[in-house]
């Protein structure tokens, strides 16, 4: 039944950034046993070095300076090493690096300076990287769990603090529940097509459509279930309800990392499964893939609910949980656009661009929240930013920039992301969704600018704690947000080679 491929055919070199990091994480796990308790900065440094090495490798591959391995697939089709992989790798590795920077002093403050934190973070990062490069549903599933399980642990990292434990258990139960849907969905897709490899699925879908086989119903069921499983990871409405609770309860440094990483992973997999594997699933008489209507409806709901509920939040972590839900809606708009065959690649590029732009800004926001949070995890209310421009003008200015970027004001990275997303939506004839998107951005201006107002126009003496790793993380976020906003073609260049649709 099986034919064992030789080691050379596996093309392992193509997976170098990911496998190297996985290997590194395993080694650090052992090394950490010998690092004394009061010198955990060694583990942190090792983790940062590992992430940096992989980041450099991924960047080299992204800029096509070095191509690792030969050809686009590795591990007999389980792994795809294309431009999309490179973009996802770079974004998530950068996020991981920022995650280490914001975490180090925070862990000291909460008395949880432990080596586990760093290698769990590395494992999650590897999970995201494999999700972005999945060439097969098996990879998607295993990578999703590799991404999720360490995050469950990290959410509860502050045990025995009740909030942290509760958020971890909630995240875990709902996460396991939704991955149950994903597995069942995979089973249905496999049942309909007889394969789990995206290319094979794509070919089988062609056949199903051409001969109008009844297995298309099985495939629809599979698509729906998979959408639920992945929709949970990206916090799409109505699978989003864990987000505010987990974000509020989990340690802020974890939230900073996972608000970006889990999204990147979820969207990378969504794009791979739907835009790449099932883009040709066009039923009779339709012009776009069968899943497009569902996708844009979810996108619209997500944008509306996320933005509206964010208005009435009073806790910063909760507010940005809803904000991250809203942004998931914008990206979903682009995923929906990928359902139109002519726009598939453009939409996938928009997703990659939005994720890159979002990564810089969002992690910066949470870094600022970390700086005002007290050691007992209190003081994360909106009030904690009141009057910040007087005591901390630079920090307030950075936060203002992040708010502008999240609102989508030109000359910031956020604008570039929104621009590409809405452009792809219009190109795919999803005009109403684009309009909803733009209108809800206006609503979002209300709560983002209220934060600016609090910082500049109200009285208060916020106490902040900014050690140098945190400061450098914020500066990196500022530089990134500005750079990508002022030179949008950096993103454009990076993404324009993304080709996800399979050729006939």
């Amino acid at each position, binding site marked *: 039944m099986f034919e064992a491929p030789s080691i050379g055919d596996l093309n392992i070199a193509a997976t170098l950034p990911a496998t190297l990091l996985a290997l590194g994480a395993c080694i650090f796990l052992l090394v950490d046993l010998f690092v004394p308790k009061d010198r955990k900065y060694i583990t942190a440094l090792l983790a940062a070095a590992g992430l940096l090495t992989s980041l450099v490798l991924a960047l080299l591959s992204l800029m096509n300076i070095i191509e690792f391995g030969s050809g686009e697939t590795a591990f007999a089709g389980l792994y795809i090493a294309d431009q999309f992989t490179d973009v996802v790798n770079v974004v998530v590795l950068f996020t991981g690096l920022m995650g280490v920077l914001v975490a180090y002093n925070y862990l000291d403050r909460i008395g949880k300076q432990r080596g586990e934190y760093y290698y769990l973070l590395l494992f999650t990062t590897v999970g995201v990287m494999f999700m972005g490069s999945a060439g097969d549903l098996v990879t998607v599933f295993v990578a999703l769990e590799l991404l999720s399980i360490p995050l469950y642990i990290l959410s509860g990292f502050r045990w025995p603090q009740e909030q942290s434990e509760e958020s971890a258990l909630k995240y875990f139960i709902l996460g396991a529940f939704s991955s149950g849907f994903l597995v*069942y969905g995979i089973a249905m897709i496999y*049942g309909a097509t007889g*394969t789990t490899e995206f290319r094979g699925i794509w070919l089988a879908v062609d056949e199903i459509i051409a001969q109008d086989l009844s297995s298309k119903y099985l495939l629809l069921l599979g698509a729906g279930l998979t959408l639920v499983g992945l929709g949970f990871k990206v916090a799409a409405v109505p699978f989003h309800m864990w987000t505010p*609770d987990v974000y509020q309860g989990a340690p802020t440094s974890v939230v900073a990392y996972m608000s970006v990483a889990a999204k990147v992973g979820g969207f990378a997999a969504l794009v791979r499964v739907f835009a790449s594997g099932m883009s040709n699933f066009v039923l009779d008489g339709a012009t776009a893939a069968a899943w497009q209507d569902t996708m844009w409806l979810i996108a619209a709901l997500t944008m509306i609910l996320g933005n509206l509920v964010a208005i009435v939040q009073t806790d910063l972590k*909760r507010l940005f949980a809803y904000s991250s839900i809203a942004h998931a809606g914008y990206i979903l708009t682009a995923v929906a656009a990928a359902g139109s065959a002519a726009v598939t690649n453009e939409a996938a590029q928009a997703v990659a661009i939005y994720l890159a732009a979002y990564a810089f800004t969002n992690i910066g926001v949470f870094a600022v929240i970390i700086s005002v949070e007290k050691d007992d995890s209190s003081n994360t209310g909106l009030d904690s930013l009141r009057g910040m421009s007087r005591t901390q003008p630079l920090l307030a200015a950075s936060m203002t920039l992040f708010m502008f970027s999240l609102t989508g004001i030109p000359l910031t990275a956020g604008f570039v992301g929104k621009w590409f997303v809405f452009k792809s939506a219009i190109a795919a004839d999803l005009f109403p969704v684009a309009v909803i998107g733009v209108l809800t951005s206006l609503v979002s201006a209300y709560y983002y600018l209220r934060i600016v107002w609090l910082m500049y126009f109200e009285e208060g003496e916020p106490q902040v704690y900014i050690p140098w790793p945190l400061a450098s993380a914020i500066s990196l976020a500022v530089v990134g947000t500005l750079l990508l906003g002022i030179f949008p073609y950096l993103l454009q260049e990076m993404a324009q080679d993304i080709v996800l649709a399979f050729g006939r």
Partner: protein
Amino acid sequence: MKTPEVAIELYILLSAILFIMGVMGVLLRRNAILVFMSVELMLNASNLALVAFSRQWANGDGHLIVFFVITVAAAEVAVGLALIVAIFRTKKSIDIDALHLFKD
């Protein structure tokens, strides 16, 4: 001895019933351990469907996924039970309705 043929539909029906039982379990149970077991039931329902489809298509891909699912489920169990134990120590209860620290 000739083995009797069982139609694929029956396997899928059984797996669907198991899956829905799992879902209802998660929805209705209050005890975290039982909720967790219901999730396992969902995963195993998927496994059954995968094996059945694998036989139908006469290729090994389905079997392959089953192995992965079993492995990953084991990892999930380890983490899940640890979390449940931790929360039991603090709260002296594993009733999921007691998880209500966060409100808007």
